[in-house]
């Protein structure tokens, strides 16, 4: 029984591995197909997000991790997002008469 469980777990990791490989090849194919820029960015980003979910979820065991880990990660991500949006807002909140120099 235990041996079967081990084989199942190893096969699970191999399935994740092949999924990651296929998604990488998918991203490269999208690039070579020369689709509309925004469409290809959206498709590649979607593939990357699935890869991140698989890698973090199963290789880093996030799917079965304790609550405290999620609190740490969500807090750091929120802080990152807040700082990013704060800087990004600079592009849309120019003082009157000011412009960007290229």
């Amino acid at each position, binding site marked *: 029984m235990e041996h079967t469980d*081990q084989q199942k*777990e*190893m096969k699970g*990791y*191999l399935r*994740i*591995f092949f999924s*990651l*490989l296929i998604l*990488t*090849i998918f*991203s*490269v194919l*999208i*690039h070579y197909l020369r689709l509309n820029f925004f469409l*290809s*960015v959206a498709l*590649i*980003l979607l593939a*990357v997000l699935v*890869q*991140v979910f698989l*890698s*973090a979820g199963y*290789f*880093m065991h996030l799917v079965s991790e*304790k*609550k*405290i*880990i999620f609190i*740490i*990660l969500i*807090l*750091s*991500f929120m*802080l*990152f997002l807040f*700082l*990013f949006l704060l*800087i*990004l807002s600079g*592009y849309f909140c120019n003082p009157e008469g000011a412009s*960007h120099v*290229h």
Partner: protein
Amino acid sequence: MDTIPYTVEVREDTGLFNAKLGIWLFLASEVMLFGALFSSYILLRIGSSSWPAGSSILSVPLGTLNTLILISSSVSMIFAWYSLKLNRVDKYKLYLGITILLTLIFLGIKGYEYSMKFHHHLYPSHNTFLAIYFTLTGIHALHILGGLIVNSYLWGPGSRMWQTEPQRFTNRVEVAGMYWHFVDLVWLFLFPVLYLF
């Protein structure tokens, strides 16, 4: 001499052994570091009047090959840890050895890419794209180098701990693996952002 607590047993309040909590806190700080670098990339790109396509400067086949190598090293790393869980230290050595070898190949290809850029006089000072490319991939390569040093230690002299404290050693390998998967994950973002967009 007092020993460090909770290296094997789980703390009641966190539900984790200390090294695992520690590595996640460290990885959270890494999220902030790479988050800041990706933010810089986005802000530079949207603020720029023109931006070259990454594939016109960088080699997509080499970038793809490096991505496949890093993904393979991630799976060999998890197999190394899993082998320890099964008390198969011989398999552990084999899989971690493969991880180290793949890491060296990754760094070799990255070094080749860098040397080709320098050969064509493409330095960070050439344009904003190359400046952010060298910054992002350079910092990532330093992380890879750090992982290589830790994994080599755990493969070589560090593996002696298996004889005296097998569970603690398994936990060490798990924590090193988490770091390795994170570095792999960062590359999964870097590759399309720099080479494909």
